[in-house]
Structure formats: structure tokens, C-alpha cells
């Protein structure tokens, strides 16, 4: 991974942001005419920064992530990702079942243009990074849920993007596995100097991971408030400081949700 880290740092010195979202709105055609899903979102992710987007259902957080990933276009505003196409991780592992774990990673390398001879070694290195040294030849269905998400993480890292987008990647995992993967993600983020934009509806998860938590209001999604998290890593989800800030953010989130019941 040494090569990847160096590259990411080089880029970090050149650009001032890993993602710049400026006045972005998005509306979809719905049964009652155009429906505004995202309303005038402006958000910067600094190089090497870890930002979580937090919100209840219907806040458009996944929509925003799709826009940043380039899978969809904003109705208004602009999105700039100077590091090229961002990597994206989903709630489902989205690994291809016709390939082994190693070959899944190699496909990402191949599509990135890595020469054939270097792919296998690079895939092994990435598997080591997520501590799955023995998983190269394993089929997807032979891996546990947590292992699948780690292979998916390795595949996302294989894109060598300096921005990693994560769409509730741990939501379907059990609590212990999720806890372990939080630790892994923090470690990898620190080792690689990636910028991460992480979407979740889990307040504690947001506080556990991020340097900055951005709260979105629902229908349409607007940035309601943001917090800087000054708790030193490695954190744990049970830490008192994490719990304290989570409580504050949860109150705010509940307030946002309550507004929708009043009319």
C-alpha cells in the first residue's frame, strides 16, 4: 500500500478539497409533480477528512452520495471531485459472485488500467490491508458478512481514488462485527489519508467515526447543522465522550423528525 499512500498525499497538497458540493439541488418526477429531494446543499470535504452525513429517512443522503459518485446528475448546482471518479461502497457488499474475492479486487485494478502482471500482487496487498490474507481464492458465498464488506472495502480501495463514499456500509451487520469494522475503517483511513464521505442514520456510528458530522433535514434534504468531533482516535462507540455528543445530535435529529408530524 506504500505507493497508494504516497499518491494520496501528493494529491492532498495540490487540491484544497476532495469533494466540493455547491448549491446542489435534486428533484425527481413523483406522483404529485416534481418532488424536491435535495435543496441547495453546499458542502466541502477536505483532503484526508472524514465526514459523516446523518439524517432520517427521506433526507436524500443516498441520493446525494449517488450524485457525488457520478451515478446521477444534480438538477441544479455543481459537484467537483478533483481526484477523479470516487470509490463507492454500498450497504450490500455488491461483490460479483462469479469471481473470487481476489479476482473481484483485480477487476477493479484492471478497469483502473493496472497492468496484468501487477494485479495479483496489488490484490494480495489490499487483502492484507483489510486483514484477509487467506481470502484471495475464496468465493463470495464462502465469506461471512463482515468479511464480504472488508473485501468490498479492499475493492473500493483498489480504485485508488482519494475519495471514498460509503452508503451505510455496515448497517446490515451484527453489532460486534460492525464495531470491529469501525476500528478497521478508522485504521485504514489513518494509514491511507483517504477522504471519506460516510452516510448513516446511526448517530453513534457517525460520532464514532467522523471528524465532522453533518445533519440533514428531511423532505427536502437541507443541511440543518454540523458538529466538529474533537474526540481523539482510536475511539470506541461506548466512550463517554461519544455518548455525550451523540445525545446532543440525537436531540437535534429528533427535533427535525418531529417537525414533519406537525403538519
Amino acid at each position, binding site marked *: 500500500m506504500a505507493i497508494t499512500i504516497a499518491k494520496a498525499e501528493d494529491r492532498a497538497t495540490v487540491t484544497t478539497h476532495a469533494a466540493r458540493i455547491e448549491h446542489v439541488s435534486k428533484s425527481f418526477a413523483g406522483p404529485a409533480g416534481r418532488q424536491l429531494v435535495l435543496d441547495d446543499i453546499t458542502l466541502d470535504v477536505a483532503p484526508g477528512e472524514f465526514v459523516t452525513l446523518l439524517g432520517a429517512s427521506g433526507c436524500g443522503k443516498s441520493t446525494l452520495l449517488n450524485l457525488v459518485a457520478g451515478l446521477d446528475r444534480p438538477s441544479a448546482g455543481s459537484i467537483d471531485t478533483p481526484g477523479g471518479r470516487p470509490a*463507492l461502497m454500498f450497504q450490500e457488499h455488491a461483490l460479483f459472485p*462469479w469471481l473470487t474475492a481476489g479476482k473481484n479486487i483485480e477487476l477493479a485494478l484492471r*478497469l483502473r488500467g493496472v497492468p496484468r502482471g501487477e494485479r495479483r500482487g496489488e490484490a494480495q496487498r489490499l487483502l492484507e490491508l483489510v486483514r484477509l490474507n487467506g481470502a484471495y481464492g475464496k468465493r463470495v458465498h464462502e465469506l461471512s458478512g463482515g468479511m464480504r464488506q472488508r473485501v468490498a472495502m479492499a475493492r473500493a480501495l483498489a480504485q485508488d481514488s482519494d475519495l471514498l463514499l460509503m452508503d451505510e456500509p455496515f448497517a446490515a451487520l451484527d453489532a460486534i462485527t460492525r464495531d*470491529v469494522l469501525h476500528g478497521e475503517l478508522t485504521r485504514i483511513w489513518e494509514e491511507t489519508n483517504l477522504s471519506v464521505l460516510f452516510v448513516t442514520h446511526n448517530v453513534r456510528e457517525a460520532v464514532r467515526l467522523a471528524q465532522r458530522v453533518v445533519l440533514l433535514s428531511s423532505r427536502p434534504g437541507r443541511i440543518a447543522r454540523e458538529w466538529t468531533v474533537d474526540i481523539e482516535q482510536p475511539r470506541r462507540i461506548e466512550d463517554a465522550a461519544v455518548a455525550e455528543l451523540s445525545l446532543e445530535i440525537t436531540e437535534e435529529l429528533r427535533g427535525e423528525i418531529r417537525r414533519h408530524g406537525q403538519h
Partner: protein
Amino acid sequence: MASTDTTSTASKTDDLAGLEAGLDALEAVQVTRTPVREVLVKKVLPPLVAVALVLLVWQVLVSAKVTDEYKLPAPSAVWDSLATMWLQGTLFDVLWTSVSRALLGFLMALAIGTPLGLLVARVRFVRAAIGPILSGLQSLPSVAWVPPAVLWLGLQDSMMYTVILLGAVPSIANGLVAGVDQVPPLFLRAGRTLGATGLRGARHIVMPAALPGYLAGLKQGWAFSWRSLMAAEIIASSPELGLGLGQLLENGRNNIDMPGIFLAIILILVVGIAIDLLIFSPLERSVLRSRGLLVKS
């Protein structure tokens, strides 16, 4: 966090690695293969028992003289027909005439049906134009194509291949279309984020993801090839066409040779099953197993 010194950080990461290794060991899915003995008892024995039962019932009916002997021959009479063909050396010629025709016809159907299926699946206009016709053709019995094919091409091999193609191409194309339609959108999104768009997307994501549906289409395509050919051989018999299984059946009718008719039917059935068991089922099973889609019963 009260302690943030390096030693505690280091031990914490070690903790994490150990915890993770434990979780992986606990949750790893064990994939075992069924032992040969179990396969024999569970998969091979039941059909053998069924065949034995059919033979038994058949023999009982013959012994009880439920009908005239020329209508229901004894199993031994059918066996004698088989032995005669074997001794005359015509058995393999007859089998090979039909099997080689069906396989060659199937390969041609494969070569035409695959690009056709891709076109229908991926190009919206083509799908709207010929998609419904293609699936409608599947319900048209291919025997219906024999009379026009005879008039178009005469009693030749090319007429047989035409009937096979008209029967099998829609199945293969439709199988591929169904396979492509069932590719989970998540795979397409994941492929796009990895940079697999356009032709690269078709090659690396769509085609491999559609493989199970495509194989199912091939399997059905083979069944249609074989059925179409038999229909063609029964209806269009001519000395120039050589003796295939269909003609064998038709000759049995002309000669009022019931054991010969039974033999021909059994051979047609056996060939159809054998090709499926030897080629398509193993192919399908290995693809499904490697994807963890094969549910153990």
C-alpha cells in the same frame, strides 16, 4: 479516552486483529462436497428404481394380456430389436445420424441466438420490435415449420437444420434476454463506479451476471433442437436423408413393427436425457455452485 499513549494504542489494534480473526473463524461458511456414496444413494438409486418399476409394470401388463401383442410388445421383444440392430451394426449409424444433426443444428442456433439475444436485451428498439415475436415463437410447435421447410428446401439436410434453427434460436435468445433482465441493478451500479461502462460493462458485468439464465436458455434450446429434428425426421423421410431415429420410428409404423417403434421412442428419449445429463446439467451445476446458488436438498 483516558489513556492515549502508544502502547495502549498498539495493544488496542492487536486486540482488534485478534477479535477479527476470531469472528472470521466463527463465521466462515464451511463448504463441503457430498461424498460419492451419498450421491449414489440419493441421486442415482431413485431413478434406477423408477425405471425398474416401469419395466415391471410393463411386463405385468404384457403377461396379463391386457391388449393384443402387436399393440403392446413385451420388453424382451424390444430388447431383441435392439440386439438385432446392434448385430447388424446399424444402431450407431442411426444414433449418429440424428445426434450429429441435432448437435450441429444446436451449434448453429447458438451462434445465431446469442448475438440476437444480446441485441434484443440491450437495444430498446430491437426489443420493442421483435421481443414479443421471439417469445411468441417459443410456443409455436416447431413441427409447424416442417411443411414450409420441405417446400422451400426440398428433402435435404438443410431443411432439417432450418427446422432446428426455427425451434432453438428463440429459446436461446430468450434465455439470454431473461438472464440479462435478471442482472441485479446493484451489480450494474457497482460496475459503473468501478469504471465498467458500455462494452466493458457488457463484458465484465452483464455477460457473466447473465450466465445462469443463458445456460438455462441453452438447455431449453437443446431440448427444442432435438424435438424439432425428430418432428422433421418423422415427416420428411427420403432415402437421400439417411436413416435417423425419426425415420426409424416412421419405418416401424409402416412395417407395423411395434417393438421397433418402442425401441425408437426409447432411444429418442435416452439421447435427449443423456445429452442433458452429460453436458448441460454439469455445466449449469458448476456455474451455480461456484456462485453459491445451489441449494442442497
